[in-house]
């Protein structure tokens, strides 16, 4: 009788021990850093916290390195040098890769996405203490020479059609850096992680065997979530008119500038794009926002393996067909 009770008991304890060993109940390693002018949070799950920490350090280092290449503020950045250059210039493979992707989005969006708006961005200067609306002549001058064909890219050889063109990779560089950070994490053997650069999110694997739950910021209620969606191994980027803006004479002037007019794009409050990589999602979110609700949604529908939704200026929600029913609204 004793043996009959002890044996199952021992078996159960053994199973318990195995089960405990197989599922580490460790929390994630989470670190934040200020990179590329924004707050970047990297969260990684795994059995060995020290290894995760090392991997995260490497990922942050990679993002800091890319900032040195892409920044429009740092004197010695490749983008600044390219902006200053006349004639053909050889760029690093990273910059070339990014410019080619950006040009693809620029063409697919009929110029709604533009990497040549450096002068226009500087003119609006939303980062300054007291930004104001520039004059029509100033805007016209700042738009000269822009457009999808303003860059000729041939391998790593880049040529600006107009030597005065100033590059600004604001709508794509952050996403690209997130992609690179995830690549570094993956290379370091991390299986489950998320990189969130001020709302540009890329997910690596799942979270403890489940989908990651992504909250989408409400465009008009600060700190509130408008919707959530469950995803894994995807990127999510939201562009909204609430991120950087000022108000003058009762109008909101935000940072998502329309290259066709030189003024902040009208029609949307926010656009969220879900895609394989964050750089593409980042560029498409900007492009769709600039195009406006209907044309923006149509652009997202046209792209393969891309989903998203638009919040119009009157608060309407337009969702791509592939995403319908997957969002949980609040």
């Amino acid at each position, binding site marked *: *009788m*004793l043996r*009959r*009770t002890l044996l*199952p*008991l021992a078996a*159960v304890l053994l*199973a*318990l021990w195995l*089960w*405990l060993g197989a599922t580490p*109940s460790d*929390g994630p390693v989470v670190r934040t850093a200020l990179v590329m002018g924004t707050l970047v949070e990297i969260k990684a799950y795994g059995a060995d916290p020290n290894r995760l920490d090392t991997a995260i350090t490497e990922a942050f280092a990679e993002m800091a390195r890319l900032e040195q290449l892409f920044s429009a503020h740092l004197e010695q950045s490749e983008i600044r040098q390219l902006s200053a250059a006349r004639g053909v210039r050889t760029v690093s493979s990273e910059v070339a890769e990014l410019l080619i992707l950006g040009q693809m989005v620029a063409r697919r969006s009929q110029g709604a996405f533009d990497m040549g708006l450096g002068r226009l961005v500087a003119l609006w200067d939303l980062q300054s203490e007291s930004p104001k609306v520039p004059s029509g002549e100033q805007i016209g001058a700042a738009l000269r020479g822009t457009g999808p064909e303003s860059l000729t890219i041939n391998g790593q050889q880049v040529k600006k059609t107009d030597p005065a063109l100033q590059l600004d990779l604001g709508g794509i560089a952050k996403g690209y850096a997130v992609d690179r950070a995830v690549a570094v994490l993956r290379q370091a053997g991390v299986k489950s992680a998320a990189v969130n650069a001020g709302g540009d999110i890329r997910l690596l694997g799942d979270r403890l065997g489940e989908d990651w739950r992504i909250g989408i910021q409400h465009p008009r209620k600060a700190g509130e979530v408008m919707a959530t969606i469950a995803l894994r191994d995807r990127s999510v980027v939201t562009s909204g008119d609430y991120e950087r803006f000022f108000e003058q004479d009762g109008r909101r002037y935000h940072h998502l500038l329309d290259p066709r007019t030189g003024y902040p794009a009208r029609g949307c409050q926010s656009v969220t794009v879900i895609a394989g990589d964050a750089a593409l999602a980042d560029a498409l979110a900007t492009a769709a926002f600039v195009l406006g609700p209907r044309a923006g949604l149509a652009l997202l529908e046209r792209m393969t393996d891309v989903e998203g939704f638009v919040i119009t200026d009157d608060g309407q929600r337009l969702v791509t067909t592939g995403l319908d029913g997957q969002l949980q609204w609040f």
Partner: protein
Amino acid sequence: MTSSVDKSLELEQVRQRVFLALFIALAIAVHAIEFLLPSPLPWFRVGLANILTVTALFLYGAQAAWTVTLTRILVGALLLGTLFSPGFFLSLSGGLLATVLMTGLYGCLPTRIGPVGVSLVGALGHASGQLLMAWLLIIRHPSVWLMLPYFLLFSFISGLLNGLAASYLLEFLLKHPAFAQLKTARAGRLRIKSHTRNPL
């Protein structure tokens, strides 16, 4: 050559096994029904199956109580398909701690303790054991222990009620002729050992 005393002992042992099997079957059924019933709070369960463990403890001793508890948990989990799930370990750790406390209390005060006292410590042990396992396995967060007082309060009440039920059940069973042998043993406060081990 078998004496009549040997025969009656053998009969009593068979009877004990049959009744134990019945108790286990009942415990599993009650366990399953309680699992399947919608509960307002997922973690709060009355633990009706413990009535049968207490009854077995008073009729047949500590070993019988262990058999009922462990078999109920294992077979119940097999039946409900929850084997090795977190819920299974919760009920296992609750059951282990409850039975340790119940058999311990019964062993310490065999002549003085009644079903209500035993059921009460069992219920408190069950709640604490479950919470301990929940903390170890699932949430690993100190706020789990915030629920401890409510768990204990709830199990205090359910423990008393289960004990009362076990008391009625014991009274009813001991009236039945099948337990006539045990009735004599009840004079020794339900210690079955006194007559199985020393039948002559």
